């Protein structure tokens, strides 16, 4: 596989190729096993990355970092009292 194909496959895997060119490349891959494998495995790799789950971040994480900042001396408040995620709601 030459350099041009390699560059095209990079763009193809990242879905950066215009549709017409992507179709041309798929046609070329039908008769070129190396090209077909390169396209399939690189696309799989990108798809796996894009589907890789983000680390969890919930309210406890939000508050823990907020408290860290506050203990380091930061004066951090929020626009409205209700929007402060850690605020204790007084019973009526």
């Amino acid at each position: 596989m030459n350099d041009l194909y390699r560059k095209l496959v990079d763009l193809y895997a990242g879905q950066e190729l215009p549709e017409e060119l992507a179709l041309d490349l798929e046609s070329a891959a039908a008769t070129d096993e190396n090209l077909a494998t390169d396209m399939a495995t690189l696309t799989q790799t990108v798809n796996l990355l894009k589907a890789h789950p983000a680390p969890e971040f919930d309210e406890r994480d939000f508050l823990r970092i907020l408290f860290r900042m506050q203990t380091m001396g930061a004066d951090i408040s929020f626009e409205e009292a209700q929007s402060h995620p850690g605020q204790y709601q007084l019973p009526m």
Partner: protein
Amino acid sequence: MSSNPREDSLAEKRWLNALAKGDASAMGELYKLYGEKIFRYTFRMLGNRADAEDATAETFLRVLRRANDLRADGAFKTWLFRIARNLCIDKMRQPKLLEISGERSYSGTEERAALRVTVQAALDELPLDYREPLILCDLEDISAKEAADTLGISVPALKSRLYRGRRALREKLGGSLEKLK
């Protein structure tokens, strides 16, 4: 953080202007807007929750310290990521007294969870020059321009590293990709 980038951009402008005027609530609102993104990025860079929390807190503290220099010119997000990145690199250079590993856990079927562990292990083995573009562009879905600005390189250089990184990751995944067929 809303799911609407335009709303986020307007909110960012509003809070940056408020922060420059000394509004105490502005920092909290900017933290609400970007806290999770910065945490996710630092966690992906550092691989453990405690260091990621430290780096996230320090990132916002640095913003607070430079509140008077801030401009609502649309470059805040990139600047924020650049601060976070520098802090991560500093942390990576520090000798570790205790290596904390295995903090990442994945849900789903056993097979899927195993695959995710394999992907993470392969990512962790990549050189930083390759890993960073993958984290920013493929995992965090940040635009090539913003990622390039964060790393302080040109867009073509970013793309070159991104494409090489994907190929390097594919090599490391080798057998696992075969099993997916």
